[in-house]
């Protein structure tokens, strides 16, 4: 009976002391940063109706969601994403709020991901959403927030690639290809399959200059110069407007002083049913998957009943943790400053000292084993605690420095004033 009881299911993990400390620290730093931008935190339920996510078949395929039923037989899911719940809230409970509606979240999400490379089935996402503003300033702020959030975690070398899906959509509209062919083209461009693109373009009757531009799409990445170069290659209004929008956003980021983190990729064409404008992803060394992704999604909130443009991003906390580990970036470790043990006569004093030191901001652990001083020392050494305060009675206190083995006798007044 119960042969699985000591295991956890594949794709979910216990997060043990060191990692948990690091994760909470990261979350705290990111939370602090988001708050400092004026974003308000929101918490949505872990369990939602399947219907909320079903509308976005392109973004979240149904086979990737954890599903179950409620007592009335309705389909429930463990949320695979938090953007969609935030959009639901924006269109319902906050529909009459003054805009812009700026929210952020940090929470766990669930997907039947294939495992490995930092991917888990339960993973933590931190993200911001800006609702009801379509200006490029909103997109630029979201990207700037993303960049500064990554910096806050301690990662210094990373890159944000920005694309604009309208550019691709404009070109495809001009070719007159069927929806099916466009999807095939999207897949080919997304995988930079030059040969496949060439074959597909050749098999259709497409104007020469447009053909050339489509063929070069997978190579259209790099610095801001790409935009100027491409502008000369097309007269498609929808695509030109997309380029102009992208350029404006980059100019704003230039003033933010963040240009060095940003580069362009016009061949970035994922999730076209979802994204309606700029789209971006963040990369760093040491992990094979993006650490963050985002973009403009003007049609999502409308699915919940309110017409409202939106833009946002989300960051994978687990990916960040893996990147920090792989890049060997030092992170703060948790520790205990002192361990207090006492003899019966010193108990009251011990509690007073402990209280006082904690108020001074130290991490102080109280010995509750009542073992011998030797046992306590052994425990302290195993936990990396540097010193023991041994309270014999209200007058006599011994401070044992475990690093050099020295013992100094002191009094309560001396001990507390020294700090």
């Amino acid at each position, binding site marked *: 009976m119960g042969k699985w009881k000591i295991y956890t299911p594949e794709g979910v993990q216990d997060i043990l002391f060191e990692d948990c400390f690091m994760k909470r620290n990261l979350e705290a730093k990111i939370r602090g940063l988001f708050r400092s931008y004026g974003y308000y935190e929101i918490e949505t339920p872990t369990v939602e109706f399947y219907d909320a996510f079903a509308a976005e078949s392109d973004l979240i395929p149904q086979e990737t969601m954890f599903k179950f039923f409620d007592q009335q037989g309705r389909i429930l899911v463990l949320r695979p994403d938090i953007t969609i719940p935030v959009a639901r809230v924006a269109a319902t409970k906050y529909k009459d709020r003054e805009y812009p509606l700026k929210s952020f979240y940090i929470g766990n999400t669930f997907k039947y991901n294939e495992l*490995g*490379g930092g991917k888990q089935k339960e993973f933590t996402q931190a993200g911001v959403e800006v609702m009801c503003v379509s200006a490029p300033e909103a997109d630029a702020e979201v990207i700037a927030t993303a960049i500064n959030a990554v910096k806050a975690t301690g990662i210094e*070398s990373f*890159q944000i*690639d920005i694309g604009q899906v309208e550019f691709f959509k404009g070109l495809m509209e001009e070719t007159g290809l069927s929806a099916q062919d466009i999807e095939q083209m999207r897949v080919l461009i997304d*995988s*930079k*399959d*030059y*040969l*496949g693109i060439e074959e597909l373009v050749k098999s259709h009757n497409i104007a020469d200059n447009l053909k050339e531009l489509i063929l070069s799409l997978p190579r259209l*990445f790099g610095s801001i110069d790409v935009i100027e170069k491409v502008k000369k290659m097309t007269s498609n209004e929808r695509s030109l407007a997309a380029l102009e929008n992208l350029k404006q956003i980059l100019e704003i980021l230039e003033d933010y002083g963040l240009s060095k983190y940003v*580069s362009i*990729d016009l061949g970035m064409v994922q999730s076209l049913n979802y994204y309606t404008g700029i789209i971006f992803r963040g*990369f*760093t*060394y*040491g*992990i*094979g*998957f*993006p650490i963050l992704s985002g973009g403009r999604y003007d049609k999502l909130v409308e699915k919940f009943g309110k017409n409202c443009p939106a833009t946002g991003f989300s960051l994978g906390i687990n990916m960040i943790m893996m990147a920090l580990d792989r890049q060997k970036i030092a992170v703060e470790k948790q520790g205990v400053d002192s361990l207090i043990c006492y003899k019966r006569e010193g108990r009251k004093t011990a509690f007073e000292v402990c209280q006082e030191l904690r108020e001074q901001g130290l991490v102080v652990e109280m010995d509750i084993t009542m073992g011998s001083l030797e046992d306590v020392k052994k425990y302290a050494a195993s936990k990396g605690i540097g010193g023991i305060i041994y309270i014999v009675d209200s007058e006599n206190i011994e401070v044992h420095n475990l690093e050099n083995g020295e013992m100094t006798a002191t009094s309560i007044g001396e001990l507390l004033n020294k700090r």
Partner: protein
Amino acid sequence: MRYLTIALSKGRLTDLSIELFEGVGIDCSELKSNSRKLILSDETNKIKFFLAKPSDVPTYVEYGAADIGIVGKDTLMEEGRNLYEVLNLGFAACRMCIAGPVELQGKLDQLNNKRVATKYPRIAREYFEHKRRESIEVIKLNGSVELAPLVGLSEVIVDLVESGRTLKENGLVVLDTIADISARMVVNRVSMKMESERINRIIDGIRKQLEKGREKQ
């Protein structure tokens, strides 16, 4: 400088891949030395190599355990990984085909229950379900797939066809071609961004070499 890691498919693609990398100035001598080491390197260019089972190469590259991989298109189609497929290397060319007894020629859609024997269940499903919009029963085999229709295990097969000799000698014919197959160079999506300069230099070098090779022919 960080190491770039290249995953090569063990088997018939290995020697041809080595030739290409040597052509762009990468030292593969350690790789050719029949060493028992699993990971070999070119210290001057800071490149590491390893050989892997072909069907594992896309996995290594998708997860970023390797930045670049050389692998057949058949494996890429079957594994369906999220990668950049940047170069068609042209070699190891063949076709992925549906084959069966000659009586089925042109009558594939009249067959109600199709049992398809193959080493490539995903490719078979994709083709029948998306291109032909027909449901099938896949029988996964690990070798000598041609045998299946002969002994009544399946009606048709999906397999790689090079010369077609095996099919012919067993009374089978190609009923349809699913895709042209050859070796491809794939790149991890993040590596392509973070190491774009070095990777693009390798890609361009190999591309030029391939073009030169084609001109000669």
